């Protein structure tokens, strides 16, 4: 009888292969830069990027910028989630509002936010607020869309049951539609978490004196490509950690509500 791989063994093998691919890519990159004598201005070696990142963290240079962006990300995500969730509920429940408002909401997503950055300063002043607003504008849409979908796709038979029991609109929403649509809503949240990083960093490109986005622009200005890459690595790490954390939260909630087995 042949031994079969268990699911956890397959997952471990996949992880090892993924890590190995990353290591091979880095080794190839390092070799290419050294062998071809590529200028650090054009493409710094991974070792140079790692050294810059290490020095920046150890000297404390990067921490204030990380904390600034993290704060803006958190504030923008919170605002975006409130707007997205409440907006999704309203648009999902009231079809007239959905028909009137949805085209404008979609338009707001198509308009490139970076072009609005100088106007945000005029409207909201300097400091973190323009970045927080931009972050919220970028990340609210997935949650709005998913909440709207979740609320409008409740099980028809159960809806009939609630109607027969003369449940109020609020009771139907809170006790049927939202619980049923929870996986969809949480998927929207996961997308919002990632998009919020894009908003926070891009928002800092023009409006900020501090933060990882501001640091990218400063690094370009001083032609410190290694620093630019180091900041991108930081942003990637922060984004990945927040995405995984959101996934853990999602699985916890879905287990508590019976969507996943404990």
């Amino acid at each position: 009888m042949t031994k079969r791989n268990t699911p956890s063994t397959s997952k471990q093998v996949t992880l090892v292969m993924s890590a190995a691919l990353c290591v091979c890519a880095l080794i190839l990159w390092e070799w290419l830069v050294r062998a071809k004598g590529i200028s650090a201005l054009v493409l710094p070696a991974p070792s140079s990027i790692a050294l810059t990142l290490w020095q920046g963290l150890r000297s404390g240079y990067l921490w204030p910028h990380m904390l600034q962006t993290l704060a803006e990300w958190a504030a923008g995500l919170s605002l975006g989630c409130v707007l997205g969730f409440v907006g999704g509920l309203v648009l999902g429940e009231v079809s007239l509002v959905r028909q009137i408002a949805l085209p404008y909401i979609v338009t707001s997503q198509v308009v490139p936010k970076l072009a609005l950055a100088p106007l945000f300063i005029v409207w909201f002043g300097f400091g973190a607020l323009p970045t927080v607003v931009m972050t919220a504008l970028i990340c609210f849409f997935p949650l709005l869309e998913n909440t709207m979908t979740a609320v409008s796709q409740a099980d028809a038979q159960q809806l009939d049951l609630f109607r027969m029991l003369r449940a109020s609109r609020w009771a139907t929403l809170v006790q049927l539609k939202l619980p049923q649509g929870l996986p969809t809503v949480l998927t929207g949240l996961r997308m919002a978490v990632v998009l919020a990083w894009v908003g926070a960093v891009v928002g800092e490109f023009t409006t900020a004196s501090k933060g990882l986005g501001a640091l990218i622009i400063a690094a370009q200005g001083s032609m410190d490509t290694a620093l630019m890459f180091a900041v991108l690595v930081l942003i990637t790490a922060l984004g990945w950690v927040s995405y995984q954390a959101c996934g853990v939260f999602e699985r916890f909630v879905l287990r508590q509500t019976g969507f996943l087995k404990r």
Partner: protein
Amino acid sequence: MTFIQRVGFILLAVMSCWGQAQAQVQAQSGNKTDKFTVAGWSKPITEITNLLVEEDKGFFKAKGIDLAYAPGAGGGDALRNLLSGQADVAFTDPGSLFAALDKGEKLRVVYDIYPQNVFNVVSLKSANITKPADLKGKRIGVYSLSSGTRQNLQVLLHQAGLSESDVTVVVTGLLNFAPLIQGQVDATAATDTGLWVGRQKGLGEVNVMEVKNFLNVSSDFFVVREDTYQQKKDLIKRFLQAYRDSAKWMMQSPQEAADLAVKFAIDGQNPSANLEIIKLRNASSVSALTQKRGLGTVDVETLQKAARAYKAFGLIQNDLNMSEVVRLDLLPAP
């Protein structure tokens, strides 16, 4: 009283005590300072260290000014922030100034920050581009289409009887020496500090054409709105005095400025690089005219020549009379 009411009451009491304490501190300090915001063309970088070190040096506080710096992405941004009321003075370039004046904005130039032109066009030695006429038919990189590098490239071309249509302008972004090194452009428009940094990053042997050798138009000015100029003369005067003091300090103590830039400038990690950049900015802050009449004096004649040049290559539509725009009455005595 419910729990929430109790919490609310406690919060109110705490905030009231805090507010009273703040008012007492304010009263005891006795010094009234005027808020004054500078809209910059950049992030808080090493080049403007003298504006960033207020916390440690207090040049502006000594003149009763509470200084704030608002970052920007170019001189146009700085002017936009000025015109929208977000700032009291703009740290901006001539091109952005001319464009705003051309649109009818009521602005006043009150201080010449860098009377030396800091722009250049750089090419690899192998390209054999040694004079502006050699740029004909070439691909030339600029930071962006709205940048000072593009405008000063046009000044250089204009001096050689060329225009932008005689070359191919390529937007390279701030990492403008990378395309030059890789041969994607034949030359690139840059600044003196950009060139210095590029050399540190392995740029190699290059030919440099400095715009100041052809038309030495100033690189940056302090510009205010007409209404601010009329209503806040004393405040502007104090600001200019404080700025001049800070600029003098940076010239007399470049090493100290370089060390402070590590703390205050977003790109100031390397003190020895900071020192070189500060030295370059110090050199661009002085001219024969400023030696005679003090830092900040504006060369109206050269500024007028620049305005005519900008009209000649189509960046502005109207004739501008710069003697009506420049106001030197608020400059402190030398």
